């Protein structure tokens, strides 16, 4: 197993280096950063001084090495808009976005897995039809529309929950954004759980378990669910990247001070250092999460460990 994990770790490092090259090259394609930093009335002499100050007068490969060295040390330069270290700004926003993603996944798993299981067990029943209709809606409704609708109904009409902001980090402020962000995930997870459960429930070993006289609870939870969860874990890794993309819109709607909102502001203001810091931090986060999920796989399904070691 350690050989497998070492290989996966090395893969992760290569991916991160690839991302750093992409981030660096793309940022250079967008034009001369100095023309973005200074006003149109800045003299050529001042521009040259700034270019030197930021190391932009060096050859591109040398600039990349400096960028990589800085990135390793968490130094992406100062934000053009805030005049603060870019990485510090990103770090300040990580707790809010992490909480948002955590609660989004929590709702998604807490609601979707029972719905998926029940729909599979009660296939073609009224519950199944209603459940699958809602999952269809969850996957179809755009998050910006759902967010505004939740604000209008839950926030303004019923006045049950805070509409926007972070408050003191209390859970009430996270419910609406995480439900908005989680609607698609809930629907996806519920559909995958259902189809996966249906497949597993028809397998011979499940029939055998039933024939042995085991209770339905044991058959469903112990024998079927464990195998049915493998596809969920797979898409969980993929969906974390999707959630980061979704957070950009959701955080903007709910004025939720996370990385997504900072990304939008930084793009509007062409705040290069912050954009680079965000892309690198998020990418590393996604690569690290997928690495962790690879480890989790080996616990859920020993065959994976066995096959890969073989």
């Amino acid at each position, binding site marked *: 197993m350690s050989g497998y994990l070492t290989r996966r770790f090395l893969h992760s490092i290569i991916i991160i280096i690839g991302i750093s090259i992409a981030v660096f090259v793309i940022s250079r394609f967008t034009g001369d950063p100095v023309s973005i930093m200074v006003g149109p009335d800045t003299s050529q002499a001042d521009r040259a001084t700034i270019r030197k100050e930021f190391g932009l007068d060096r050859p591109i490969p040398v600039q990349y090495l400096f960028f990589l060295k800085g990135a390793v040390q968490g130094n992406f330069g100062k934000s053009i808009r805030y005049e603060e270290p870019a990485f510090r700004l990103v770090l300040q926003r990580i707790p809010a976005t992490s909480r948002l993603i955590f609660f989004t996944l929590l709702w998604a798993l807490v609601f979707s897995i029972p719905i998926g299981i029940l729909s599979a067990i009660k296939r073609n029943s009224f519950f199944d039809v209603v459940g699958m209709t809602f999952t269809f809606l969850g996957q179809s409704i755009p998050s910006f529309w759902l967010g505004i609708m939740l604000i209008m109904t839950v926030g303004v009409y019923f006045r049950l929950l805070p*509409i*926007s902001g972070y408050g003191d980090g209390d859970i009430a402020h996270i419910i609406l954004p995480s439900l908005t962000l989680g609607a698609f995930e809930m629907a996806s997870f519920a559909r995958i759980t259902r189809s996966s459960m249906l497949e597993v429930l028809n397998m011979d070993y499940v029939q055998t378990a039933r024939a042995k006289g085991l209770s339905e609870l044991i058959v469903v939870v112990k024998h079927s669910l464990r195998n049915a969860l493998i596809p969920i874990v797979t898409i969980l890794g993929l969906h974390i990247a999707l959630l980061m993309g979704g957070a950009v819109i959701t955080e903007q709607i709910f004025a939720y001070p996370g990385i997504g909102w900072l990304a939008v502001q930084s793009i509007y203001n062409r705040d290069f250092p912050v954009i680079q810091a965000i892309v690198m931090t998020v990418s590393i986060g996604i690569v690290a999460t997928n690495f962790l999920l690879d480890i989790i796989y080996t616990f859920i399904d020993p065959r994976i460990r066995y096959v890969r070691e073989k």
Partner: protein
Amino acid sequence: MRRKRIVLGGLLLISSLIFSILFFGLRAQPAECQTRVRVAQGAEPTRLDPDMHRENVSNTVILHIYDALLERNQNEEIRLNLAESWRFLNDTTLEFKLRKGIKFSNGEPFNAQVVKYNIERVAGLLPGAKKTLNPPGWESVKEVKVLDDYTVQMITKYPNPVLLSLCAQKYMVPIEYTKKDNFESLATKPIGTGPYVLKSWMKGGELVLTAKKDYWKGAPKIDEVIFRPIPEDATRIAELKVGNVDIIANLKPDNIKEIEAEKNLTVKYAPSARTAMIFINTEIEKMKDVRVRKAINYALDVPSIIKNVMGGNAYRVSTVCPKNFVGWDPQEKFYDYNPAKAKQLLAEAGFPNGMDATILTPRGRYLNDVQACEAIAGMLTAAGIRTKVNAVEFGVFAKQTQAHQIPEMMYAAWGNPHFDVLETVQAVLRSGEMFSWYSNKQMDELIDAAKQTVDPKKHEDLLRRLLRLMYDDPPFGFLYNQRDIYGVNKRLNWAPRPDEDINLYGAFLK
């Protein structure tokens, strides 16, 4: 079978229990405080160093923390503030007598040395200090002399008629506190002599100010002011409706009825310092003829654009000078809406069959910019100037205008921090300027003369002469200045200002 039902029921019960607890049990209860006011703006402040920003969102916070030597009142007239008196000793020497006994919130005294230090910083005369981001004009200062603890003189290289206006925007920062780290702390931990002090600031979240009970002009009537950035219009409106915020800025005309329908809310208006105009590119041969430019003005039904496109949220201007600006002419004349005359002028100019033209506009930068241009293009086309609208993103628009490459016409709304039309004409009319596509020697001379004249009456007379010339030889299609719209909770007694700053000193809860 029975067990199965129990299991299923249990799963449902647990799910609904978690949902109920989270949904109903954890509703945030806003803390009640009679003298707390929340303001929602579209963005958050960048830095709280008053000299290192150029935007209203930051300025709205900053003006509560700091004081300037002078200030603008609700009507934008310049009044005394930290200064007890001012006088021009000659065209290039301005003397201030300062108020005594005023202290910064960290205990440092306010005196003539502080003024010298501050003005030298923004004039680029303070050794080791970074270049600041104040509006242009401070570079005219040559020297700052301290005569005694409470008397200071500013000596300029040439007469500067907007020097007083600059002094009304230059907030004073303390010496010792800023010397320690070359102004670094000021960005996030501001220290001023103003009516409020910063209590907390969570980036992306709430910025909380608390009232200074011993403020030298008297304690503020609102104990706590909270600024929140809410970028989404619909969310800002929703927060106002539920009472979580008391003022929202940048309300769109389409949302006015929605706010007015709420019994606890009202809509407030202020004329903006932003004047919309059609820049005519006289560097293109066919636009050089004054008859073509007059035809453009006769073709425009400006009151109709204000009513139907701007929803009534604009005030017509005869040229480029709104009523509350220095230079406004009480005897101003407006072009009539007369498409027949426009056609006749075009024919006289050698275009009996009309002409083709394009109008460039940014998309979404100014209030209803593209819609206004569509209406303008329709009116011009009806009068014989077949106009196409080229609406582009602001980045593209800025790049084209800065490269001095525009088609026959361009729509833009020009801001003016000094409420003096000189600022506008210097930038958009003076020959050779980046945003000027027009050249007129007589007008240039008047601009240069006004720039050198600090005597208010003579200064204003020169500008009025200029505006009359401009009316006769129009370099622009004359339009309107915008109206800023705010949604406000009726419990708050507060009035908006033309400079877009939201000032809560003096406001109170009913």
